[in-house]
């Protein structure tokens, strides 16, 4: 293990600071032709709900300048099939597994977490309270500080495992939400989820996406995400997992310098499935070139 890349987040020791963004990596199996889950400091799974969710009608994705819109709608097979199929696949790998949890009610979130608590392969949870593509629940929890607090506190009571809460950028004041989930007992926050957007097909005169609106991701959102990480870093004392358009080692380093302890790649992996490896190589090279002993030394350095 290369110790210069090691970071601590929410009580977990990660061998490197790079994670896959939830929803872009499935449960890990599909990327095996390119790399194994052990490439990442931790795996973050696609969202898991109590019962299966079918997701939104197609079309679900559409490319936009330097980015893409998606409205998948958190399609997932539910926690029981996740236990039967995804956990046995992930179990042999050594990298920690963070399960992204989605729900329509507070009870839904709690039920998923309680069902997964006894599985040692589950290292922690990331609560998705910020998906813009699911009408009830999801985003509703992420846009009001008191709701964000309540869901975080309820899940906190249900588990002693590391608890990360993923925040929405589609709010007036992301700092208020970040403070609320910190107060609710979160060990870390992930930011940002996608920015709400849309596209119209001028030939059919109709919205392109089956869901009408969708989440914008990719390089187009990076400056917004970076600004939010920078602002939130100053306001809270728990660690941040930074994400939003990260496609290169330089992007990842910017987020770390803005205050992120770890970073996630999502849409960047769609640009090139070998991008995660390239980012890790690039960060190592930067540390060597700049004679920096540990990536942790760079955290929040842009604030000094």
């Amino acid at each position, binding site marked *: 293990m290369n110790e210069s890349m090691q970071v601590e987040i929410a009580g977990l020791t990660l061998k490197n600071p790079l994670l896959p963004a939830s929803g872009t990596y499935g449960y890990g199996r599909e990327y095996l032709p390119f790399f194994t889950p052990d490439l990442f400091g931790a795996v973050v799974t696609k969202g898991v709900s109590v019962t299966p969710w079918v997701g939104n009608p*197609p079309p679900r994705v559409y490319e936009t300048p330097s980015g893409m819109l*998606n409205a998948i709608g958190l399609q997932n097979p539910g926690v029981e099939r996740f236990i039967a199929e995804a956990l046995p696949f992930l179990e042999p790998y050594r990298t920690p597994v963070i399960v992204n949890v989605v729900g329509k009610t507070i009870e839904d979130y709690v039920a998923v977490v309680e069902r997964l608590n006894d599985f040692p392969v589950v290292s922690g949870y990331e609560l998705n309270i910020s998906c813009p593509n699911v009408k009830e629940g999801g985003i509703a929890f992420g846009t009001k500080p008191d709701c964000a607090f309540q869901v975080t506190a309820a899940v906190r009571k249900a588990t002693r495992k590391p608890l990360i809460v993923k925040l929405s950028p589609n709010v007036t004041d992301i700092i208020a939400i970040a403070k609320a989930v910190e107060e609710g007992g979160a060990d870390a926050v992930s930011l940002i989820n996608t920015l709400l957007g849309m596209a119209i097909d001028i030939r059919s005169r109709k919205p392109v996406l089956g869901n009408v609106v969708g989440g914008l991701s*990719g390089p187009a959102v990076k400056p917004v995400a970076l600004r939010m990480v920078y602002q939130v870093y100053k306001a809270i004392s728990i660690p941040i997992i930074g994400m939003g358009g990260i496609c290169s080692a330089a992007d990842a380093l910017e987020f770390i310098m803005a205050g992120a302890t770890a970073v996630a790649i999502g849409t960047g992996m769609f640009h090139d499935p070998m991008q995660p490896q390239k980012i890790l190589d690039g960060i190592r090279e930067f540390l060597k070139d700049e004679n920096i002993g540990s990536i942790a030394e760079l955290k929040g350095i842009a604030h000094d």
Partner: protein
Amino acid sequence: MRQTEALIVERTVLGPGYYYYRLLCPEIAELAKPGQFIEIKVSSEGTLDPLLSRPISIYRIDRKEGSLAVIFKTVGRGTRRIAELKMGNQVSIFGPVGNGFTLPEETGRIALIAGGIGMPPLFSLAEHYPERDFTLFYGGRSAGDLLGLEAWEKLGVPYRLATDDGSAGFHGLVTALFEKEYEARPFDYMIACGPKPMLRAVQQLAAKYRLPGALSLEAYMACGVGACLGCTCVTTKGYKRVCVDGPVFDISEVAFDE
């Protein structure tokens, strides 16, 4: 599935907006089956826009040379960027992706129904099964949209053409042409690739004549590996991923919206 830098060994402009490329990529050619596709990276080195790779159907597989050929039409920013690549350039690709065609042992007389740029995967299929009894029904807007007819001739597969403007073959829909021929001499199996309205009509014909068969779909895709669930289509068994559960589906399985 492999990722590689493929060398472009041939580039031909087949007509306005239509391109033929032959790519040297032995690792991928070795694995490729008819009906599969490759993902071609469209941004130039060091740039991120256009962001996503483009899924392009395989037209010919040459294991001996270690090459794959593709034919595509320029429809947007991504395909226009691919069309700018010259012979001798390298391009980053990964694949083969998708299930491809699997023919049952006995297929009898097979109708291949191609609409416009849906032709290439059907050619890879016909070339892979030289002993089967194929007939191609090939429809397009106009004569200039019907590509590679000499190759079909060389393969010994008879073809019937249909155009919207009557500039080549039958004046009308390719599905109407198929129906005429079917009434004279029936088929036992149907395989189609083309625009959605044509696929829907093919599905209705298959139901009418009780024919088994397959449809090859296309969709906007993001990851191209089955992870993002972005390219799903509606089937009788729920949402399925076009990229890895397809692009080839049973002819009765796809649910078209009205």
